[in-house]
């Protein structure tokens, strides 16, 4: 019997657990450890944040599903890693702290044969002074709680504008000089704009996009050259076209360093310190590792073997200048090099470097996006890790047959640009590969131009809505769920 422990039940962790359970016989144990009782389909949080969906539409409780499917579940958060066991325990284990029930606050050892670390990111609001959702008119949509809170703040502003002649300022973007997930903020700003039109208050609101991207449409992927209809255009031009059409002002190359009541202080790449005022803001925080510690059998600190902020995997972490980065730097199997039974798919793995070109302000502050690993790459990397573990269990030795580098993987970003069956809008973009391969596709910005395209229209909204229902169906492991690709 083999025991596989999955830390985290987000897109990555839940995908891995589902595939492991489907393909391994019941004599093997699959155990999920997550501090949250619910699964949440995070991409739809932007619709919770504009009041078009309720949290119930985007979440479901994990425990009943896992009970039905034969997946073990412990509601707890991991505290420390012990990949060699300790003086009392021969097996490798993680120390966890229970987050609910009778055992709440107590710690316990969870042993494993294979470990999948899918703990995702820590939403590091503390890395930006004053950035704490809902405390100073600045909100987040990173969790369903945050998104609900954001809608309450936006709704109050809309009501105020409807009943007065006042004007207002809305600021949406990234809340830290090295934040990632620009896509979520991009979706939110377009949805907010559309809702303001629907409520008849758009003419009273100045909307501003503020981001750490050097150019619009970077999305943490160094931007892209894409086909749009019969044209070939840069993603920066496409986003600029949309913002101009929606009368959205933008500030690029800006890193927010401090947030106060209705004020965001930022530094730009020119080294200027500026302030942007707002009546409502949604700012994506920095993502960081969880600060986990690891110990060997003798209780010696071996954290550096497992973590560089996020978990160390089979990437090439040798520091090199941007011009020397290659797709080969990126991991293929997400296996920890020191402990071959530990894997880290999704956001939990430490990237070798950013994808976007690193830039510093004239004062030396790093202002550029961190690499995105959310959504589709999370699911794909989780599935290939699960497949490698399944092969390893079946063959009795470590198998790494399944590979999936972000330098050889396509992704689709279906960005909602407004909600509504016939009034909705979406910006559909695909890119191949996610990490640009400037050698292979030297003439097209590192991407296969046949597979990197953009499209705008109502159909994009329908696609995004279809994905919402399809992926929740899949996550609930309903009949033939596994036929739906990650």
């Amino acid at each position, binding site marked *: 019997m083999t025991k596989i422990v999955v830390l985290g039940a987000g897109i990555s962790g839940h995908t891995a657990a589902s595939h492991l359970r489907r393909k391994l016989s019941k004599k093997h144990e699959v155990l999920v450890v997550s501090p949250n009782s619910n699964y949440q389909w995070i991409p739809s949080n932007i619709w919770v944040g504009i009041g078009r969906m309720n949290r119930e539409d985007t979440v479901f409780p994990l425990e009943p599903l896992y009970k039905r499917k034969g997946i073990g579940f412990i509601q707890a958060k991991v505290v420390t890693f012990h990949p060699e066991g300790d003086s009392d325990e021969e097996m490798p284990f993680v120390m966890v702290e229970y987050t609910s029930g009778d055992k709440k606050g107590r710690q316990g050892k969870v042993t494993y044969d294979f470990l999948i670390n899918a703990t995702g990111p820590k939403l590091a609001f503390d890395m930006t002074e004053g950035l704490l959702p809902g405390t100073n008119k600045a909100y987040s949509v990173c969790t369903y709680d945050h998104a609900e809170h954001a809608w309450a703040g936006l709704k109050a502003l809309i009501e105020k504008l409807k009943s007065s002649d006042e004007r207002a300022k809305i600021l949406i973007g990234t809340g830290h000089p090295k934040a990632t997930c620009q896509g979520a903020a991009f979706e939110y700003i377009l949805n907010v704009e559309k809702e303001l039109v629907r409520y008849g208050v758009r003419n009273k609101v100045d909307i501003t996009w503020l981001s750490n991207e050097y150019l619009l449409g970077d999305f943490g992927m160094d931007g892209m050259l894409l086909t749009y209809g019969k044209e070939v255009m840069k993603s920066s031009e496409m986003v600029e076209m949309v913002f101009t059409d929606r009368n959205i002002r933008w500030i690029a190359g800006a890193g927010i360093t401090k947030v106060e009541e209705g004020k965001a202080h930022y530094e730009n790449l020119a080294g200027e310190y500026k302030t942007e005022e707002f009546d409502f803001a949604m700012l994506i925080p920095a993502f960081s590792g969880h600060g986990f510690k690891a110990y060997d059998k003798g209780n010696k600190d071996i954290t550096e073997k497992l973590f560089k902020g996020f978990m160390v995997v089979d990437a090439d972490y040798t520091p090199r200048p941007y011009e020397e980065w290659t797709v080969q730097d990126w991991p293929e199997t997400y296996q920890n090099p020191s402990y071959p039974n530990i894997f880290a798919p999704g956001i939990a793995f430490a990237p070798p470097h950013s994808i976007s070109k690193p830039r510093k302000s004239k004062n030396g502050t790093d202002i550029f996006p961190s690499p995105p690993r959310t959504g589709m790459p999370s699911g794909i990397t989780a599935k290939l890790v699960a497949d490698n573990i399944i092969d390893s269990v079946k063959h009795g030795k470590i198998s790494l047959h399944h*590979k999936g580098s972000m330098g050889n993987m*396509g992704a689709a970003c279906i960005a909602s640009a407004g909600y509504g069956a016939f009034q909705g809008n979406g910006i559909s973009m695909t890119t191949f590969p996610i990490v640009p391969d400037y050698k292979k596709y030297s003439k097209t910005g590192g991407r296969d131009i046949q597979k990197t395209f953009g499209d705008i229209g109502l159909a994009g909204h329908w696609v995004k809505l279809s994905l919402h229902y399809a992926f929740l169906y899949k996550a609930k492991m309903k009949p033939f769920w596994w036929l739906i690709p990650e």
Partner: protein
Amino acid sequence: MTHLISKAEKAKMQNPFIQFFKFVWLNIKIIGIVGHGHGGTRK
């Protein structure tokens, strides 16, 4: 110079009939790109 979305383009973007076919085309195209498989980059 910034590209602008013309009124004719906007009408097409919101036309449910045209967009239905676009929806089918998008799904096929997206699955073709992201579902086509993936692999390593090293020898």
